[in-house]
């Protein structure tokens, strides 16, 4: 165990009587990329935070740690935190939470040196920027001026600033697209570094890690060399996990005339065009993916297609004519599903809202029954339909809005990052719901930063910002 860069024996974390992580043991070998994968709430992030001494005092941590030939007490949080930066690097999941909003990103990176009383090294910062494809001129701007994916890379630069031999990364690729994700992973392991990475993206881990540990309910359920994660010989739990994350593609659209057509569409923010003139056509039943970095105008495009934002130039034709959308023709699925529901209404009433309009008046009981049937089709049969939206999990709220969309039967469904907060199993269910709506004849525009998912789910994918600044 002395050879390992980080050795963990019998790690347990409990909050009161609730045990979150149970008796976890693993070695992180020098130069190895070890992936911890699992569904939301399986304890992945808790393991990382325990190893870094970043858990709140209410958490009880037990077990033994050994790093670089030195024994560490897992509940001596001060000693663990003293290792941050020079002995162990940490990349937090949400880059915006990790940066102080009132300080420039350069100050955030320089903090790595200043925390230890050293002088920042401009040459090292420049080298890291170059390696990670960051524009050095951007460094003096504030975090809110950065896109999520770029800021995530700046965060990685901060974690690698002092060149620690071990890096712990929590979903470091959640905000970047598939090509950049591989580059980020390569950068993390630069120079034979040991990397422990937490992710729910089994696909990416199978391609970029050496070894994969599957976590279930705070225990290691299975272990496999990364190359064999999708092999027939992979352990049962890993095969189940991979199957649950498999995405379905809706059937090919009909040859009906397009219901929506954009010709040289230009949208502006201030005076600056958001993307080059865009032309596209959508047929009933077609699923169109829109991918692009944050700030490239994905949400603005959806607002324009919904008729909320007038285009600066170009045409949006509906059924071949330039007209505003009719009531009930377009429906938006918001990224934050919870905010798109009336918090005072039971989910049954939320789902039934589309039935309160239109020529046919349904009795309240009939509406409720239809809503319940639709909730059941979205896999929410076991959830009490009298619950309020805020009493549900994120994945469940997303599926409630899908049930509502299925009852609304819009001709055009605009989905804004509907899966970004979901784990693979929930994401798979949400995509299934979208595919069902498309199969019923609605055209779907699906916006996401997850290129890999779009490639598997959509009939066509439009990239809003084709130029990538990331180097391989």
């Amino acid at each position: 165990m002395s050879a390992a860069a980080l050795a963990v024996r019998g790690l347990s974390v409990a909050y009161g009587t609730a045990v979150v992580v149970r008796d976890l043991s693993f070695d992180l070998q020098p130069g190895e990329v070890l992936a911890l994968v699992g569904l939301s709430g399986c304890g992945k992030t808790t393991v990382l935070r325990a190893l870094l001494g970043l858990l709140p005092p209410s958490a009880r941590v037990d077990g033994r740690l050994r790093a670089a030939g030195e024994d560490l007490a897992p509940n001596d949080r001060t000693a663990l935190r003293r290792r941050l930066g020079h002995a162990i690097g940490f990349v937090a999941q949400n880059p915006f939470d990790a940066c102080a909003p009132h300080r420039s990103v350069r100050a955030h990176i320089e903090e790595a040196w200043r925390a230890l009383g050293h002088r920042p090294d401009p040459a090292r910062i420049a080298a890291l920027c170059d390696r990670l494809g960051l524009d050095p001129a951007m460094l003096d701007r504030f975090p809110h001026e950065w896109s999520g994916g770029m800021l995530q890379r700046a965060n990685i630069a901060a974690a690698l600033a002092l060149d620690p031999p071990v890096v712990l990364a929590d979903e470091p690729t959640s905000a970047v697209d598939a090509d950049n994700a591989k580059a980020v992973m390569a950068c993390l392991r630069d120079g034979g570094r040991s990397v422990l990475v937490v992710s729910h993206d089994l696909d990416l881990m199978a391609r970029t890690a050496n070894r994969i540990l599957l976590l279930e309910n705070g225990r290691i359920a299975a272990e496999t060399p990364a190359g064999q994660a999708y092999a027939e010989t992979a352990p049962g739990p890993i095969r189940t996990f991979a199957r649950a994350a498999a995405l379905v593609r809706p059937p090919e659209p009909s040859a009906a005339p397009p219901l929506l057509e954009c010709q040289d569409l230009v949208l502006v923010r201030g005076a600056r065009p958001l993307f080059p003139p865009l032309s596209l056509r959508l047929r009933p039943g077609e699923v169109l993916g829109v991918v692009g970095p944050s700030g490239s105008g994905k949400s603005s495009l959806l607002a324009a297609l919904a008729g909320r934002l007038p285009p600066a130039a170009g045409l949006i034709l509906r059924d071949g004519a330039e007209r505003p959308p009719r009531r009930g023709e377009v429906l938006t699925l918001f990224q934050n599903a919870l905010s798109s529901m009336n918090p005072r209404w039971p989910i049954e009433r939320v789902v039934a809202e589309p039935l309160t309009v239109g020529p046919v008046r349904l009795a309240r009981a009939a509406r409720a029954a239809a809503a319940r049937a639709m909730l059941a089709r979205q896999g929410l049969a076991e959830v009490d339909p009298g619950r309020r939206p805020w009493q549900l999990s994120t994945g469940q709220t997303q599926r409630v809005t899908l049930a509502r969309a299925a009852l609304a039967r819009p001709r055009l469904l605009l989905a804004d990052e509907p899966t970004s907060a979901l784990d693979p199993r929930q994401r798979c269910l949400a995509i299934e719901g979208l595919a069902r709506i498309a199969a019923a004849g609605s055209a779907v525009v699906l916006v996401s930063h997850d290129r890999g998912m779009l490639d598997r789910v959509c009939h066509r994918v439009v990239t809003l910002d084709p130029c990538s600044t990331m180097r391989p």
Partner: protein
Amino acid sequence: MIGLSRRAATAPRPGAMPPTDFPAALLRHPSGRWGLALCLLLLGAAAAGPWLAPHPPNLPDYAATLRPPGPGHWLGTDAMGRDQLSRLLDGARRSLGGAAAVTAAITLVGLLVGSLAALSGRWIDAALMRLVDVVMALPGLIVAFGVLGLLGPGYLNLLIALAAADWAYKARIARACALEAVRSPAAMVAREIGVPEWRVLAQHVLPSVLWPLLVLATLGLGGQIAAISAFSFLGLGVQVPHAEWGAMLAESRFHFQIAPWLLLAPALCIFVAVLASNLLGEALRDIATPEARS
């Protein structure tokens, strides 16, 4: 009492919601249980006052002045021989009813002004909000004194003055809540589905404005009771011979050394009333924002 209290700073966030079982949740909440019980007790006493009162509240009896509590006069008599219990019950209607009227008025005015500003936008919004700025820039006490100076002392004038001093804050909250609710994804989805605009306003916007205002109203009720009492104590509110808790306090202070019960009873009533409304308001706030409770 007038203006921003510490508690008002932690006003419920817009879009606050009552849960499924609102009455049950109120009874489960310790503050809610006690606040409700005390409120019902006080309101019951005020409503049944004329039947409960053993004597006419304003009838002097110069043969029985400054009697200590005892049979016949359970809470004693004042300097003119009027029955203290009867006057407390009679005064409850003015203290509590006045506070309720002022609170209802400022909530309604705040709701109307705030919603109008948020929904009409442009120059109506700008004009209304600058007016609100002016009123909020003046301390509430000064506004109330100013209005009373214009209208002259009196119970009804006092209620008008208190309402004039406090509506602006509610209008601001209402505007913020309405703005957020009108642009919320929930309202946008309803419009896309084809729900008519009046129903979007009634079902998605109005509750998001009304509910936070109701919580604020209960929290402010105690302050209004104290304000009415304070102005009556200064002689600017309820006029002789009518009873009101603050006015009774004012009259009793001349005889405090020989008849302390005259001071204690109305003071205790004011205290209990303020406590009850604060407990109730706190419970409502917790129920409205369950995730904010610590």
